[in-house]
């Protein structure tokens, strides 16, 4: 039996971090996929880009600061982190993120990158 090629999974984050659990639910999946050595990329689009903003502090409004865990992505081999440039521009944001290794992609490149993945989960 031949070993199948590992399937690339994309997790597409589309929600702002605090008023819904979507960001945390997506993070939990990312960490599990990472720890199972499942090649996984993280995409941030729409209000999902707020999850990456530098300087936010959820503890002020009693949110357990799950965004801090993003710093551990490298440890989980989650090294492909892409953000939609157009979404940043629409929100007046600059590429000022609270983690390293984020790649800002123009709309077309963002779309192309997403399309190399076999499975896409969106939260």
């Amino acid at each position, binding site marked *: 039996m031949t070993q199948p090629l590992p*399937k690339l*999974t994309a997790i597409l984050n589309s929600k702002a971090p605090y008023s819904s*659990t*979507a960001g945390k*639910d997506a993070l*939990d*999946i990312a960490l*599990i*996929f990472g720890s*199972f050595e*499942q090649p996984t990329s993280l995409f941030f689009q729409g209000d999902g880009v707020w999850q990456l903003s530098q300087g936010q502090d959820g503890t002020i409004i009693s949110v357990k600061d799950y965004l801090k865990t993003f710093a551990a992505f490298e440890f989980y081999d989650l090294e492909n982190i892409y953000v939609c440039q157009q979404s940043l521009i629409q929100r007046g944001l600059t590429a000022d993120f609270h983690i390293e290794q984020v790649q800002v992609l123009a709309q077309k490149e963002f779309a192309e990158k997403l399309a190399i993945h076999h*499975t896409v*989960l*969106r939260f």
Partner: protein
Amino acid sequence: MKKLAVVVTTPPYSNLSVTALDYVETALKSGVELVGVFFYQDGVIHANQQVDIASDEFQCIKHWQALQQTFKLPLHLCITAAEKRGLSDEQPNNIHSIFTVSGLGELVELVNKADRLVQF
């Protein structure tokens, strides 16, 4: 023959879940192999035995039960998401018996077993 996996994230009282059920039922009845359904986020509310939907409304859980029995369809419940919503597999257990208590590791399995994963 290609295999499918399905993720359900919407609650049993939403018409969005009827669509998910319709999709799964249609796939199974046309002979497509479904490696499993994974209930996540508010989808886990399906497993709560105490959910009581008025008898003149659509009974999602009865339909899932029929599919599970007829097609031996695995229905996986993310226990972390479930516990957050008042479900427990300890005494008193309030999880409907048609569900298999699982974790996110099971989702990794489903992604690997299936040719396509569809999220609802």
